[in-house]
């Protein structure tokens, strides 16, 4: 799960990490008031779940409350298009108003769980403001890493090693070590999947400051962080994906085609989308119904297809394991009973309780296109979407 920069900074501040003085606002008048309160030069930052805001014009530096109001009115209510958003962009409904900082140096600092060592890793680099992947490719020697033994946590010597590595000096060594220790504590306490301060700046008077902040959280751990769950801004997410979650379908991703897919299992669902493309079609979504054995989620998947005006045909591909084919079949029949299905549906069933599932479908009298296997299903649904097969 993602949160906004202003929320991430509030969490950093709670953990004793210095952030610029500032406040969030949702209309230009508020922005003017905050700018007047802060005084002098201020920065107006669009709050969106996407990086690349600076280059996209989502960050503006202004000299007066009047200019602040004007800049805010050009951002709030518009859609910001960055290299991380689609061409439709994301809605800016809030801006963060902050005092402008006098920056002497820009660095990069982050923590994530390293997949190979399976330990959290603290990374720091002098190439602040750049994306870490670019630095990793162009100048890997500029990234200093410390792997953190989860049994003992982040240790001061690791902080000193990293701080000396990026040429901090004097009081900055202790300051940076405390900052890293606090960031690690936040990372662990809140089950983060990424804690990133980019840039971490040294101000003209030698102090460290988190100028930007990004915190991502482990979805699997949200059950134990109600405070974090409440920070989610649904406006920033794809409406169909929010709708899917509200209907209990957690594994739904909107894609750019016109073929609706309902599959059990994430790997099979990805493979179905790949195969549809191979057969000349495009999937409208990734949908893994998961393993919960109830018909409601099947019915809700059909509601999703109906809610999506792009859908021209649907492929149901179920290989029962933990999910049982008979339950899925009952769900499909219920969906046909509850709603008018305006598009052709191709069904391929296999696995646990197949015979019973097939019997339920055949007996129900619902009209569908039977596929004998995976490939057959993909081919038939692509034809159906093109109107060749009804």
């Amino acid at each position: 799960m993602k949160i906004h920069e202003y929320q991430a900074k509030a969490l950093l501040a709670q953990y004793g990490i210095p952030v610029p003085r500032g406040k969030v606002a949702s209309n230009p008048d508020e922005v003017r008031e905050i700018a007047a309160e802060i005084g002098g030069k201020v920065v107006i930052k669009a709050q969106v779940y996407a990086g690349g805001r600076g280059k996209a014009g989502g960050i503006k530096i202004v000299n007066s409350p009047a200019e602040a109001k004007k800049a805010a009115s050009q951002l709030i209510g518009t859609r910001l298009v960055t290299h991380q958003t689609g061409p439709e962009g994301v809605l800016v409904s809030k801006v963060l108003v902050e005092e402008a900082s006098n920056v002497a140096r820009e660095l990069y600092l982050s923590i994530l769980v390293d997949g190979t060592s399976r330990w959290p890793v603290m990374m720091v680099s002098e190439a602040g403001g750049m994306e870490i992947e670019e630095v990793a490719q162009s100048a890997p020697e500029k990234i200093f890493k410390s792997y953190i033994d989860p049994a003992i946590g982040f240790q001061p010597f690791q902080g000193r090693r990293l701080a000396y590595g990026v040429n901090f000096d004097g009081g900055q060594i202790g300051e940076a070590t405390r900052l890293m220790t606090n960031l690690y504590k936040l990372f662990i306490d809140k089950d983060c999947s990424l804690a990133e301060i980019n840039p971490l700046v040294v101000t003209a008077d030698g102090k460290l400051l988190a100028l930007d902040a990004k915190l991502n959280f482990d979805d699997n751990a949200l059950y134990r962080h109600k405070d974090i769950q409440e920070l989610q801004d649904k406006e920033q997410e794809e409406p169909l994906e929010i709708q899917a979650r509200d209907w209990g379908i957690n594994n739904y991703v909107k894609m750019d085609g016109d073929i609706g897919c309902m599959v059990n299992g994430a790997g099979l669902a990805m493979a179905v989308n790949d195969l549809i493309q191979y057969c000349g079609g495009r999937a409208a979504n990734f949908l893994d119904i998961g393993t919960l054995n109830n018909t409601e989620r099947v019915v809700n998947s059909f509601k999703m297809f109906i809610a999506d005006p792009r859908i021209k045909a649907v492929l149901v591909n179920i290989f029962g394991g933990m999910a049982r084919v008979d339950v899925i079949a009952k769900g499909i029949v219920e969906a046909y009973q509850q709603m008018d299905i305006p598009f052709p549906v191709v069904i391929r069933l296999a696995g646990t309780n197949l015979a019973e599932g097939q019997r339920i479908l055949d007996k129900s009298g619902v009209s569908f296109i039977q596929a004998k296997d995976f490939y057959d299903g993909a081919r038939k649904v692509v034809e159906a979407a093109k109107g060749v097969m009804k």
Partner: protein
Amino acid sequence: MSILVDENTRLLVQGITGSEGSFHTQRCIEYGTKVVAGVTPGKGGSKHLGVPVFNTIEKAMAETRANASLIFVPPAFAADGILEAIDAGMSLVVCITEGIPVLEMVKVHRYLKDKSTRLIGPNCPGVMSPGKCKAGIMVGDIHLPGNVGIISRSGTLTYDVVSQLTSLGIGQSTCVGIGGDTLPGSTFVDILKLFQADQDTKAVVLIGEIGGTMEQEAAEFISHKMTKPVVAFVAGSTAPPGKRMGHAGAIITGSAGKASEKIKALSQAGATIAPTPAEVGLTTKKVLENS
């Protein structure tokens, strides 16, 4: 032969009395797996599906000589269940549970260091040696005993591949679902090593997906250490970057996480790439005929 599980496996089921635990334990027993014990705290002393239930793994192992454990415990408690099994000295732990927090798995991996337990999963379909032992939730009757080893990050996609192989008359030595999480207990490389050493495995099918670098590490191992042919498929060629595709580990965060990069690495390492997920069986057939 086979790897990880066989006719000598004495299976213990953690969470045997829950609904998923019950359903799948019954299927394992019907397949012929020796399920010798169940563990559900508070239900020790009873019997479930004809299997004695214990409060602790320690007690269950002492009384039944269980040597492998299969976990169906809910996500908030599953890491604790894995730790209990490791502590009791279980040699194989297979965790089916999906949704364990990553930082819980960080602790589990820390505890696993210097222990002899092999962990498979979590968020996986389990391990199956056809005709010998089914320790998982996979469909039993699609499998056929034989000489092809399977390793996969996916569950249902593996079932599809297995049924493709079986319908072509190609049997399997062992099918290992390593799971879809970011920190699996065993990686592709861990299992490739076991298949390379297994006399009855003649070829290996590897089913990868987007996210992480496990396929690249597998490619490295294949090019330097593997003498047996490997057939590979990587799911998620059409997946958009930055989106989690169902599995916790299936998210493209850097260029290495893309399907195309993984396919390139595996192909350069000498693995034969199946052009589509529906042709893994046929590709394997050709590879076996030419080897």
